[in-house]
C-alpha cells in the first residue's frame, strides 16, 4: 500500500506539472483529492491495516495529500500569473494619444497677479478690504491732502459725476474710509478699479486697477516701510530682487518715495524691458501725512503709518510680458488661455 501511495503521489505530481490550464488542475484535484478521488479511496482502504500500522499510514497519506495540495497551489499561482501576464500584454495602450481634459477655464492675468499680491500681504497680517468705485470728491482728494483747485486734481484727469461725486482716480480713498472707522491698528490692502480719463492705447486705459496698502500703528517707521516693500518685492519677483527707494512727492504722504526693483528679466544688467537701466519702477509710497491722519481722526502724535499704491496692470504686464494693455480688456480667449 505504501508503494501504491508513492506511485499515486508521483503520478499526481507528474500530471500537475504537465497541466497548462486552471480547469485541468481542478480535474486533477478532484481525481486525487476529491471525495471519490484516489487518495481518498486509499485512505478508505486503511481499514484493512492493523491498528499499529493505521496511524503511520494515515500520516503518510496526509503527507502525500499535503505535497499534492502544495503542488496544486503552486501550479495554480504559476498559471494565474501567466494568464495575468498574457492579459496585460494584450492591454497595452498608446499613452501618447490625446488627454481627455475637462477644459478648465483660465483666470485673468490681472487676477492672478492680484492674488499673488494678496497672498503675500495676507501672510504678513494684512486684511483685504474694498471701497466704492464711485466716490466722493472728499475721500478721493480732500481727505488725502489734495484740496480744491490743487493742481494734482488736474494731473489725474478725473471723471466727474457731479461736483461732489467722481470715479475714484486711485484706491487711496479706501485708506481714509478705513482710518475713519477708528479701529487701530490697521494693516490693510485695498485692491480695486480706478479711472482716469486717458484714451485707450497700448500703455493706457481709462479704467485700470490699483492695490492700496496702509499700516497705522504706534511706532511705525520709514524703515518699516522699506522692509515691508523689500519683502513684498522679493516674494513677488524672486529672492534675488533688490529694491531702490527714490524720493518723490505725493500730497498724502511725507516723506514719499517711488520704488524701483531690479529688472526681473535681466536681473539688473540692463535690457529692453528696463530700458537699459536695470531697474523697473513699480510703486509709490510714503509715511502717511500728519494732515491726513488728523483729518481721519487719528492723532499723529500717537500714531504713525505708511501707505503704498501699486498699479496692478503694471505688475501684470511686466510679470507676464504682455506688450499691449488693450489685450487685458478684449477678453480674447486665445489671450486668456495663456494664463
Amino acid at each position: 500500500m505504501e508503494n501504491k501511495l508513492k506511485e499515486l503521489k508521483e503520478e499526481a505530481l507528474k500530471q500537475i506539472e504537465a497541466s497548462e490550464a486552471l480547469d485541468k488542475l481542478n480535474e486533477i484535484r478532484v481525481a486525487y483529492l476529491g471525495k471519490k478521488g484516489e487518495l481518498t479511496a486509499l485512505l478508505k482502504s486503511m481499514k484493512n491495516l492493523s491498528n499499529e500500522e493505521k496511524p503511520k499510514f494515515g500520516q503518510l497519506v496526509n503527507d502525500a495529500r499535503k505535497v499534492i495540495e502544495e503542488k496544486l497551489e503552486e501550479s495554480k499561482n504559476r498559471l494565474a500569473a501567466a494568464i495575468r501576464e498574457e492579459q496585460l500584454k494584450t492591454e497595452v495602450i498608446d499613452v501618447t494619444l490625446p488627454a481627455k481634459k475637462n477644459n478648465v477655464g483660465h483666470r485673468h492675468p490681472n487676477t492672478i497677479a492680484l492674488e499673488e499680491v494678496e497672498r503675500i500681504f495676507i501672510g504678513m497680517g494684512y486684511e483685504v478690504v474694498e471701497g466704492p468705485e464711485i466716490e466722493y470728491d472728499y475721500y478721493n482728494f480732500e481727505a488725502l491732502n489734495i484740496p480744491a483747485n490743487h493742481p494734482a486734481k488736474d494731473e489725474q484727469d478725473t471723471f466727474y459725476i457731479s461736483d461732489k461725486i467722481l470715479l475714484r482716480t486711485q484706491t487711496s480713498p479706501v485708506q481714509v474710509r478705513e482710518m475713519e472707522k477708528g479701529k487701530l491698528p490697521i494693516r490693510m490692502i485695498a485692491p480695486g478699479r480706478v479711472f482716469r480719463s486717458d484714451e485707450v492705447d497700448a500703455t493706457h486705459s481709462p479704467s485700470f486697477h490699483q492695490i492700496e496698502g496702509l499700516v497705522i500703528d504706534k511706532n511705525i517707521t520709514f524703515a518699516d516701510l522699506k522692509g515691508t516693500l523689500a519683502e513684498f518685492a522679493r516674494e513677488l519677483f524672486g529672492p534675488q530682487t533688490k529694491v531702490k527707494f527714490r524720493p518723490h512727492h505725493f500730497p498724502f504722504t511725507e516723506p514719499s518715495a517711488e520704488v524701483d526693483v531690479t529688472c526681473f528679466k535681466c536681473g539688473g544688467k540692463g535690457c529692453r524691458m528696463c530700458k537699459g537701466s536695470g531697474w523697473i519702477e513699480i510703486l509709490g509710497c510714503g509715511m502717511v501725512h500728519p494732515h491726513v491722519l488728523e483729518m481721519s481722526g487719528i492723532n499723529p502724535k500717537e500714531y504713525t503709518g505708511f501707505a503704498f499704491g501699486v498699479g496692478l496692470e503694471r505688475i501684470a504686464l511686466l510679470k507676464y510680458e504682455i506688450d499691449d494693455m488693450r489685450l487685458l480688456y478684449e477678453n480674447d480667449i486665445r489671450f486668456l488661455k495663456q494664463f
Partner: protein
Amino acid sequence: MNTPLSWIQAYVPDLKVAEQEYTDAMTLSGTKVESYLKLDKNLEKIVVGQIEKIEKHPDADKLVICQVNIGTETIQIVTGAPNVEEGQKIPVVLDGGRVAGGHDGSSLPEDGIKIKKGKLRGVESFGMMCSIEELGSSKEMYPDAPENGIYILKEDAVVGEDAIKVLGLHDAVFEYEITSNRVDCYSVLGIAREAAATFGKKFIPPVVTSTGNREDVHDFISVEVLDKELCPRYCARMVKNIKLAPSPEWMQRRLAACGIRPINNIVDITNYVMEEYGQPMHAYDMETLEGKKIVVSRAKEGEEFQTLDGQIRKLDSSILMIRDGVKAVGIAGIMGGENSKITDEVKDMLFEAACFDGTNIRLSAKKVGLRTEASGKFEKGLDPNNAELAINRACQLIEELGAGEVVGGIIDVYYAKKEPKRILFQPDWINQLLGTCIPKQEMLSIFEKLELQYDAATEEVIIPTFRQDLECEADLAEEVARFYGYDQIPTTLPTGEATTGKLSFKLRIEEIAKNIAEYCGFSQAMSYSFESPKVYDKLLLPKDSMLRQAVTILNPLGEDFSIMRTTSLNGMLNSLATNYNRRNKAVKLYELGNIYLPKELPLTELPEERMQFTLGMYGEGDFYTMKGVVEEFLEKIGVTQKISYHPEEKKPFLHPGRQAEIFYKKIKIGYIGEVHPEVADQYEIGERVYLAVLDMPEILPIATFDRKYNGIAKYPSVTRDISMVMPKNILVGQIEEIIETKGGQYLESYALFDIYEGSQIMTGYKSVAYSITFRAGDRTLEEKDVNEAMERILKALKGIGIELRQ
C-alpha cells in the same frame, strides 16, 4: 525740464562728475533725472584744422582737395562741401575717428559713423571736415553754422586742439522729472542748489549788481494793482534805447540746449532768466502804453482781447488782466496783447516780473484755452520774493550785452511781503519717524546745505520762501532722509500688535465663484465699467426700463464711455462678440464686476455698487449646462436648499421661451437664459448664446461656510419609479415641488430619468419619469411608510392634471 550740465556747473563750479554718476545721485536725492543726452556722443578724434591750400579735383567737378594743418602734420582731405576757403579753421575728424551723424541732419545712428582714410575718385583723403550736423548738433544751437557745408570755427581756435572742446560740446543735456511741490526746481538755480547739496559742493548763484541809469522809472510810469489776491507782487523796470541784435552764442547755445529757439537779445534774455530763476517775465513796448500807467485788474464779463498770437480771446470776470491807462495790454501770466508787443522797431520797453495766484492762472489758462510756458510756471504758485531778483538779473544781462539802457529804480507793488516760515525742529521725532539714529548735528548740516537756517534759541528751522513745499515736521524729515540717503535708512518690519490677514467674506465667496466657473470651463473676462447709452437699444430694453436710469459721467471720453453700466450684459456680449468675430470656437467667459444703480438721479449720494457674477457662452453646451454651473456654485457656497426657476417675467434681451429668474426661497438671486436671437444679431454673434447673471449682494446673506456631518445611511432605501403623462406646458419644476412638499420625512432624493415627446404620446403632451427614493435614518422602512408618501404625491399630481402612465 531740460538743462545742460554746463549751466548747472556755472553755479556749482566744483561739480566734476560723470553723467551716470550725476544721474544716479540726483535721482536718489529727489531730483529725478529722466534721461540725458551726451552732446559729445560718438565724437572721436576730432581736432581743429586749418585749410592751407585748396586745389581742384582732377576727376570730379564737385570735389576739391584740401591740405589741412592739424597741428602735428598737414593732411590731405577731399571734400564736396561748397563753403571751404583757404585759411579757414574747421573741425576735422581724423582717420579712425567717429562722428555722430550724416551731413543731412537726419536722425543719428546709435553708434555714430566711423571715419577711415580712403580714396575719393582716385585721390586719397585722410579725414573729414565736419558740418554741425555731423557733430550731432544743429543750427539752433550753432546759429552761425552755414545752411549747407562745413562748420567754420572762430579764428582764435588753436590748430590741433580738441575741436569738441572748442565747440563746447563736452556737455550733456539732462531731462529732469520735477515733482509738482518743488516749484523752486523748475529753474536752473533750483536744480543747481540741489546738485550742490547732493555732491557737497559750494553753490554760487549769480551776483546781481545794481543796475540802471540815473533816471527813475517812477517818472515814466506807475503801477496800480486792484486785485491783491490774484497779484501779490508786481515788479516793473524800464529799458530805453533798445538795440535789438542776436544774443551772444553762449546764451543761444544754452537756450537751444533747453529746447528754446533763440530769437533776439531781448527775447532771449527774458527766456534765459525764466530758465535760470524760474520767473516768467513780459516786455511791453512803452510807445504803445497809454496814460503812463499799468493797472492790474480783472476782466469784464464777456470782454474780448487779442493776444499777441493774433487770436481773439473771450474773457470772464475771473481772469486777471494787465491794462494801461486806457486799454487791456495782456492777460496776466498767460500772454501779452497784440497791441503792445515788442516789434523790431521797439525803442523803449517796460519789463514786468510779477507773481500771480497759481490756481487762478491755471483756471484762467484753461478757460482761455491757452497754456503757455509762462502760465505753466505761474500756475505752480511762484515765490514773490523771486520776482525782484529775476527782473534785476534780466536788467543786468541787458546792460552786459549792451541790449539797451536800463532806467534806474524799480516799481515794486508788494502789499504783504512773504516771510519765511518756521518749523519746530525735533530730531528725536524725525529719527522716530524714519527709524534711524541720525545725530542732530548731521541733520543741521543737511539743512545748512539747503539754505534752511536754524534758530537755536527757538529750536526752529527757518524756511526760505522759495521752499514753499516745506510746511511741517514731516517735511523736515523728508529733507533729512533725502540727503542722509533713502538707501542708508535701515530695513525693518513693523512690530506691535499682531493682526490677522484675511479676505473678507465677500471676497471669499467671489473666489469660489472664480474657481467653480473655471472648473466648469469658463475663463475670466474684464470689461469696462462705463459704456454707451446705445447699449440699451441693443439690448431691446423698453424706454421706461429701470436699467436706463444710469449714472452719467460729466466729462466722458466720448459717448461710448459716458454712462456707468447698470447691467453687466453688454460687457459680456461684447467680449463674446469679439471672440466670435475672431472665429474662436466654443467660448465660455465669466466676469465679476460691479454695476452701478443710482438711488436717485441726479446723484446726491453714492450709487449702489452691486457685484455681478456673469457667465456667458456660445458654441458648446446649452441652457442646462449654464444652469449646472449656477447650481454647482450655489452648492459650493452652502446654499443647499432648493433653487427654483421662474419663467414668467420676461426679459426683452432673452429668448421668450428660454429664460428664468432664479429664486432662493422668495429671494430673486439672478437670472438665466438664452440670448434673444435679435440681440445676438445686434452683437453679430451667429450662434446661440447663453447667459447667467447672479446678483452677489443677494447671494452673500444665504452663503455659508458652515457644514454639518449627517452620518452615512445605515438602513436600506426604497426607490419607486413613476411615469407620467401630462400637458406639455406643465413644468417638471411643478412635479418636483410636489415631490418635495408631499414626500414626507422619509423622502431622500428624486431624479428625473426620462422625458419624452413623440409618437406614442398624444400631441401636446409629454411623458416624464421620476425615480423617488425614501429612507429612514433609524430603521428599515416598511411598505406602508412608502405607500403613504407615494399616495400623497400622486394625489397632488393628479390635482394639477398629471396622470400616471398606464
